[in-house]
């Protein structure tokens, strides 16, 4: 055993251990001898550290593990053990997000990482302040902007890209100031019209003069600074501080005072940029918060958004007009056959007021937000935008957005939910690793529910009775200090006490105690391939019995199925939402529950907990119906899946959600106590008993 060996490991021993992990990427010309020989020269503790890390990385990718081993000895010279671990985690994060090539490049530049660590003590990571900045930008006004990560900061009008690390200044406060200023300048570009449609067109027309764009950006930055001076003086003070700290003074080209006029718009900057088109733009004229420009990216996004938002607005206006007609003072009056156009009363960036038939109307929030966004792109709301879509034209030209379609063509993550996943070997989350979509179960109209109701008619009746008892009656509490009515018995006794010289009790009232079951329950049903056959039947029957019983109890409940095929394709199937009744549609969906692929439980738990958190209830329970261990086609099998699921359940408990598991896996006692805790699960040894037991379990759980 290597651990028992007193001195450092020999090159041969190291090579042997490396080969165990990275054998698949070795060949006769590419052996582990080189890295092993280097590693033989360091002390034993470091050797073990590197070899353990190689084993961890190899569980994700053998090539990456080999590359790590090849650069590890050099790394140990400049990094301590904690930093070595951080180096490994960063490499794996890069591998997860960008791929092998980028991760290998990162490993090769170990000196760069060491330098970065040196400055990091004073620097600020974007990750740590991303939410603050996002909320901050959202508060400022206009279209909500996301924060993304890029080497140079710029905006594409939907996302503000900022560098991952800010290390320009010595203190964290100053680095935050810089981040904030960069973000505000990007926001100001979208809010004060820098990237209005007409400006983009004009800049594209002038693309043969490459100097126009940097000049335009320069003049715009100055114009925005002046606007911020009056609108957000606190931010302007920050900009001045940054200028002072970096020794920057904004240069003054001729005639530029025109930008300070209140009426100056982006067209002034463009006109001045055109005047300077023949002069090269001096790079040192930009300040540290000006950032860059990605015109082609902006153009694509603005054009795409304009089309989309026009359709959206027309649809929303049509719906709104229908609502206005329905709530008209005289409902007997027939609404006009055709929809009428709205008109603009006053165009201001955030509070555009509109009217219908000459009367001012207050638009709903979604219409208002859309009007603001369109105003940001066009600088006005054109009349043709205010004509509602005609009958049957809802979603006219809207792209087909069936979530099922995204798997057919090129893969993309638009509209999907991204969740972190816990990697127990790294002891770290894989960021945005699991991609999840919510789909509807395809309803199946085959009287499955009716058949089940007939089959278990006796049991349903019994369940209802027990559940009704659970609902609880209002109880009259006697001898209360305050209450609705007088407790005569107590008064008689108190009077007797008083007459006999004893102290009189003040508990003389009765009070009605109302039993209030404030419970929300989420059922998470395993729809993996292994449930095919009678397990699936038992699950569906169990759900029918539960729903029938729950109808009499009045608890709020939802049912969702889950399945997955690798972390890129996790699916949650809606059977019944919290706000839905137990309708025919829901019954058909229960019947339509069909086995799908695998069992990636962690992401499903995280998503359903998010849904559960949106419900207002005193007690929140997540009940999982499952037939086996967490499992998926990629590396989710075994301990990885169990540990991720356990971590997701810990997160749930932190959010005050009680998880519980009902399983038919007779082996479950070996892993469920670790995941759910010793008492939070039930193992049902025979599948056909599931429908009989489930209501009973639920009753015990919530009594």
């Amino acid at each position, binding site marked *: 055993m290597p651990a028992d060996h007193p001195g450092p490991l020999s090159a041969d021993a190291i090579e042997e251990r490396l080969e165990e992990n990275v054998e698949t990427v070795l060949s006769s010309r590419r052996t582990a001898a080189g890295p092993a020989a280097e590693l033989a020269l360091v002390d034993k503790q470091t050797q073990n550290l590197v070899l353990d890390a190689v084993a961890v990385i190899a569980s994700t990718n053998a090539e990456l593990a080999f590359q790590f081993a090849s650069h590890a000895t050099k790394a140990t010279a400049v990094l301590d053990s904690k930093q070595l671990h951080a180096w490994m985690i960063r490499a794996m994060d890069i591998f997860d997000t960008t791929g092998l090539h980028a991760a290998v490049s990162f490993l090769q530049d170990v000196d760069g990482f060491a330098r970065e660590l040196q400055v990091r003590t004073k620097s600020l990571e974007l990750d740590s302040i991303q*939410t603050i900045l996002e909320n901050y930008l959202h508060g400022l006004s206009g279209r909500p902007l996301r924060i993304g990560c890029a080497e140079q900061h710029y905006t594409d009008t939907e996302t503000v890209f900022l560098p991952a690390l800010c290390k320009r200044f010595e203190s964290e406060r100053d680095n935050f100031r810089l981040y904030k200023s960069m973000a505000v300048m990007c926001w100001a570009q979208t809010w004060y019209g820098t990237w209005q449609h007409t400006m983009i067109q004009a800049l594209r027309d002038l693309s043969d003069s490459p100097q126009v764009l940097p000049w335009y950006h320069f003049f715009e930055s100055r114009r925005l600074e002046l606007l911020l001076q009056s609108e957000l*003086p606190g931010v302007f003070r920050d900009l001045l501080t940054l200028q002072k700290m970096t020794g920057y003074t904004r240069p003054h080209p001729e005639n530029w005072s025109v930008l300070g006029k209140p009426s100056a718009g982006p067209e002034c900057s463009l006109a001045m940029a055109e005047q300077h088109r023949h002069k090269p733009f001096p790079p040192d004229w930009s300040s540290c918060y000006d950032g860059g420009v990605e015109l082609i990216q902006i153009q694509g996004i603005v054009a795409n958004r304009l089309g989309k938002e026009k359709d959206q607005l027309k649809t929303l206006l049509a719906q709104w007009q229908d609502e206005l007609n329905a709530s008209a003072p005289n409902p007997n009056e027939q609404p006009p056959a055709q929809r009428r156009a709205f008109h603009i009363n006053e165009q201001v960036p955030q509070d555009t007021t509109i009217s219908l038939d000459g009367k001012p109307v207050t638009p709903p929030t979604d219409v208002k937000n859309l009007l603001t966004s369109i105003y940001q792109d066009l600088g006005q709301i054109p009349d043709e935008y205010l004509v509602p879509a005609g009958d049957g034209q809802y979603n006219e030209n809207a792209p087909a957005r069936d979530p099922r379609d995204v798997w057919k063509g090129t893969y993309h993550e638009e509209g999907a939910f991204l969740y972190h996943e816990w990697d127990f070997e790294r002891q770290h989350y894989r960021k945005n690793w699991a991609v999840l979509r919510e789909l509807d179960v395809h309803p199946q109209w085959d009287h499955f529910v009716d058949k089940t109701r007939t089959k278990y008619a006796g049991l349903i009746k019994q369940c209802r009775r027990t559940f009704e008892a659970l609902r609880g009656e209002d109880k009259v509490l006697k001898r209360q200090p305050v*209450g609705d*009515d007088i407790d005569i018995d107590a008064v008689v006794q108190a009077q007797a006490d008083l007459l006999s010289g004893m102290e009189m009790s003040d508990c003389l009232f009765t009070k*009605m105690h109302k039993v209030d079951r404030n419970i929300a329950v989420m059922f998470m049903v395993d729809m993996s391939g292994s449930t095919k056959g009678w397990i699936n039947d038992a699950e569906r029957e169990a759900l029918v019995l539960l729903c029938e019983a729950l109808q009499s109890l009045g608890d709020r409940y939802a049912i969702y199925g889950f399945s997955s095929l690798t972390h890129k394709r996790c699916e949650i199937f809606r059977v019944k939402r919290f706000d839905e009744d137990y309708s025919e549609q829901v019954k058909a969906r229960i019947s339509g529950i069909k086995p799908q692929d695998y069992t990636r439980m962690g992401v499903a738990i995280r998503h359903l907990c998010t849904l559960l958190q949106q419900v207002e209830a005193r007690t929140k329970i997540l009940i999982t119906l499952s037939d086996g261990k967490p499992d998926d086609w990629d590396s989710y099998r075994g301990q990885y899946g169990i540990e991720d699921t356990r971590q997701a359940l810990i997160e749930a408990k932190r959010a005050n959600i009680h998880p519980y598991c009902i399983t038919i896996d007779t082996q479950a006692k070996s892993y469920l106590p670790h995941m759910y805790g010793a008492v939070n699960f039930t193992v049902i040894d025979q599948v056909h008993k599931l429908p009989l037991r489930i209501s009973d379990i639920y009753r015990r759980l919530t009594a």
Partner: protein
Amino acid sequence: MACRKIQTTLSLSYILSLNVWLFPVQANILKPEEHRIVDEPYYEPIAEEINVFEAAYRNQLPVLLKGPTGCGKTRFMEHMAWRLQRPLITVSCHDDLTASDLVGRFLITAGETRWVDGPLARAVRCGGICYLDEIVEARKDTTVVIHPLADDRRLLPIEKLGELLEAAAEFSLVISYNPGYQSVLKDLKQSTRQRFVALEFDYPQQALESKIICKEAGIDQQTAAQLVKFAHMTRNLKGNGLDEGASTRLLVHAAKLMSSGVAPTVACAAAISQALTDDPEMLAAVNELSASVF
């Protein structure tokens, strides 16, 4: 000498404590059904709400006030009570409020039972304005007590006395709620809401809100305008991490702190940010917003 000094100190402190005991600082004791608001409560109308309320009052129609927290509903009620010179009896509803809490109950004094009117019965008897604040917080079985009062019968049945109390012509019932909660649990039943004339309240327009803050807190117009701008920023965050944006009431609080010499960002953090959220990241973002405005 030292002894005498101690004695003097003791007797002084004794006299002082006696003084507090003999002449305690006392709040005014007012009987709600007799109290009339004398000074005009400051209120800036947003739209036609004063006319509509007066018309509803004259026609003996109950009124429902809808609007976010701190937008001036209660102040409006005080103002109307002053205008109409009627007593205003306010009940803040909560989920333990029972019908007896509203109508009345028997108490025991000197070995006898004695009936004590609840605030609703008092208002009905004295022809006052009964204002049930945040009515959705009350349980639904309590809410139905007001039904016979809220239609043309204008009766309050008191079962325990076997009486039917007919409301005086001056009596008016007003309820309020915040539709922003958007919770299934906290929604008003149709059978309740369809008995009322509804008045919708929202935060006032920018200029009006600044004017209100200037008047209430005595700060200059520019600072008031900056405060309103900050409030709008927090209102943009409603539903995106904040349950509610800053209300006019919070702005007045912050403005009062400022007029007492507290720095604007400190006043905003204490009176607004901390009142809006406990989430540290959201708190940081809101504080940055106030730092940007001032």
